[in-house]
């Protein structure tokens, strides 16, 4: 393959990378917000995302298929339902697995371990429920509308769904920035993130803010799940794990706790991943295949953590004793 051939591949690769990156960014926001407020990695976030994806597929398959509604309306309804379920689930998770530990004097590792437990529990619980109704791998219902090709360059096209993802994810990110920086709720969230005790002395109901943070993060994960199902065409109870890990990598890459950081990190990671997955096999003549792209993501994570522990946009943390 010549250099010009590879150059030709560049625009669609970048477009794919951007779409993937935006998905990572929306999921990463959930990690980064919870981390900002509680200093906790919500391991179960990847499963909350997965539940959103499955709920969206079920809603589209069983409630909306054949209603004759416009595909855009259908996907919006699915997104709202998925956001509601995922948001509710995130709040429930916080109640059951995190809050009791926050109030008691538990060992430092305890919340991480309950989070992992919750994530395993959700994977198998969803697998069980899904398998009661047939196969637990669920295909996204056929919606030809979203596969319509729109021109990107004179020679390349991208499917309409990429544009949908771009718009929805962009709106989510913009909306969240607005909420966090220009509303009372956002001010309270930032206050709790800065200093939980001081915030509560200033009259902020910390428990309520934590709950709302989980709600927002969960709802975003639900929307991201819908978009993920739309993009990749199928979901199963384990399809949250790898995207979740990547989204976490994105959050760390951008500087965990930082909302713009999660967005930048997501987009950078998405583009890098697709570029590596496309070009490395070509350059090495398939000696290093696409299956190694996940390894590259982790390699990036490790490099970032070693050389830039606070990420691209994170503030250096000093620990006071």
């Amino acid at each position: 393959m010549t250099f010009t051939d590879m150059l030709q591949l560049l625009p669609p690769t970048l477009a794919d990378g951007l779409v993937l990156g935006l998905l990572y960014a929306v999921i990463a926001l959930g990690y980064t917000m919870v981390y900002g407020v509680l200093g906790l990695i919500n391991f179960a976030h990847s499963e909350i995302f997965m539940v959103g994806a499955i709920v969206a597929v079920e809603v589209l398959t069983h409630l909306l298929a054949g209603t004759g509604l416009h595909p855009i309306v259908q996907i919006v309804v699915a997104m709202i339902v998925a956001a509601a379920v995922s948001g509710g689930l995130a709040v429930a998770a916080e109640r059951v697995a995190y809050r009791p530990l926050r109030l008691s004097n538990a060992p430092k590792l305890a919340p991480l371990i309950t989070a992992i437990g919750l994530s395993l529990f959700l994977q198998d619980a969803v697998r069980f429920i899904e398998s009661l109704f047939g196969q637990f791998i669920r295909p996204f219902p056929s919606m030809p509308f979203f596969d319509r090709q729109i021109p990107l360059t004179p020679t390349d096209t991208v499917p309409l769904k990429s544009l949908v993802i771009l718009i929805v994810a962009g709106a989510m990110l913009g909306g969240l920035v607005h909420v966090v920086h220009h509303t009372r709720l956002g001010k309270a969230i930032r206050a709790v993130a800065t200093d939980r005790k001081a915030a509560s002395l200033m009259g902020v109901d910390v428990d309520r803010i934590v709950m709302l943070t989980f709600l927002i993060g969960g709802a975003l994960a639900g929307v991201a799940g819908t978009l993920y199902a739309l993009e990749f065409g199928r979901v199963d109870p384990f399809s949250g794990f790898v995207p979740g890990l990547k989204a976490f990598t994105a959050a760390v890459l951008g500087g965990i706790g930082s909302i713009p950081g999660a967005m930048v990190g997501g987009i950078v990671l998405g583009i890098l991943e697709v570029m590596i997955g496309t070009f490395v096999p070509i350059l090495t003549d398939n000696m290093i295949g696409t299956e190694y792209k996940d390894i590259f993501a982790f390699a990036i994570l490790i490099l970032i953590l070693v050389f830039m522990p606070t990420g691209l946009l994170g503030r250096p943390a000093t620990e006071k004793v």
Partner: protein
Amino acid sequence: MAAGLLSPRSLGVVAYAIVTTAMALFVFTGSGLVDTAAFVALLVSVHLATDAARIDGATRFVVLTLVLVVALPLVGVRNTFYLDVATQVGIYAVLALGLNIVVGFAGLLDLGFIAFFAVGAYLWAILSSAHGAGLLGPGFPLPPDAFFVAILVAVGIAAGFGILLGLPVLRLKGDYLAIVTLGFGEVIRVLANNLDKPVNITNGPQGITGIAQPLSGVAATLASPAVPGFKWQALVYYALVLALVGIAVTVNRRLDGSKIGRAWIAIREDEIAAQAMGIPLVRTKLVAFATGAAFAGTMGVVFAAKQTFVSPESFDFNQSIGVLAMIVFGGLGSIRGAMVGAAMVTILNLQILKALSAGLNHLRSTGFEVFGWSFANLPTQFEPSKYERLVFGVILIAMMLHRPRGLVPADRRTIRVDTSNETEREGAR
């Protein structure tokens, strides 16, 4: 204080061990739930006897010999399945002891621990199989009894991998470390899955078969017509694993009481304070990682030899979580806890969940009715043995919420300073 065999508690434990041994030997030999209960009861006597604070050395020795050296092999000869379970428990017990050093003592949450196990397993698999011979050339496969050298080599190589992982990531705080180790575990699995090209090292998803078994000569000598069909090799592995568990426990106990052990605990409790007291953070953490990894690497070699087959599937995230569940169950930082956890989780996985599945299937097929509701209506998906993640998840959450220190909490030895001496000295002055 009445020490010795005559203390009531010691007598009780000995009596209990004798009763359970008799039960296991003469009453139950099947593999249903009741038999499993008898088997577990037998193992409980080991647990009771190792309570060092309340049981004296002689009693401990008697009970351990009776149960581990006499009862279990005899049960195993009658029903190989139990010997296999006991061996499996032993393998996982050593893994749990290794992870206990990293997570329990040093407080570094490692979610990719099984990677080191994989390193040991693939090491022996490649060195001793026909597949490896094709890769390494003349002189291979190694003779089966090179196994013991391989164990020592695995200790070194796995420790090396531990340091390799540790070096870049040890500056990280707990949460980051968890995710990076998780990533590392996945990387090793993906490598095992894909390194069949350009050079076929791991044979990809098919795995490596025909791995050599050590001491097959001993097994052949033992073979007697008295018990036809019994695979004496299983007994050899049992003895081998038992010895390794003994070594692992001793090493763990010695480390726990040593300077480095106290440094680990100091780091776990407060990194900054530990550093201020002059503990070299990086070196101490690296030693923890390397030691834990060495335990896992050793057992990887044993695992590969015992299974005679390795494939990437045996080393997935579930396995790492399983070992974590063991030490959380037993109590982080607790040596006896790690053993209890290993036994409970392994038996849960291998026996209880399977027996429950079989029981439910039986009820389903016979259409057993409870209050007019027939078990035939129970969906076929309802199979406990397929939902180990769910069980592990519930264990992890429930333990952390209700018994965060585990079933057998670690107790730090405390030294009481005798203040009466002080006053005396003051009086003399």
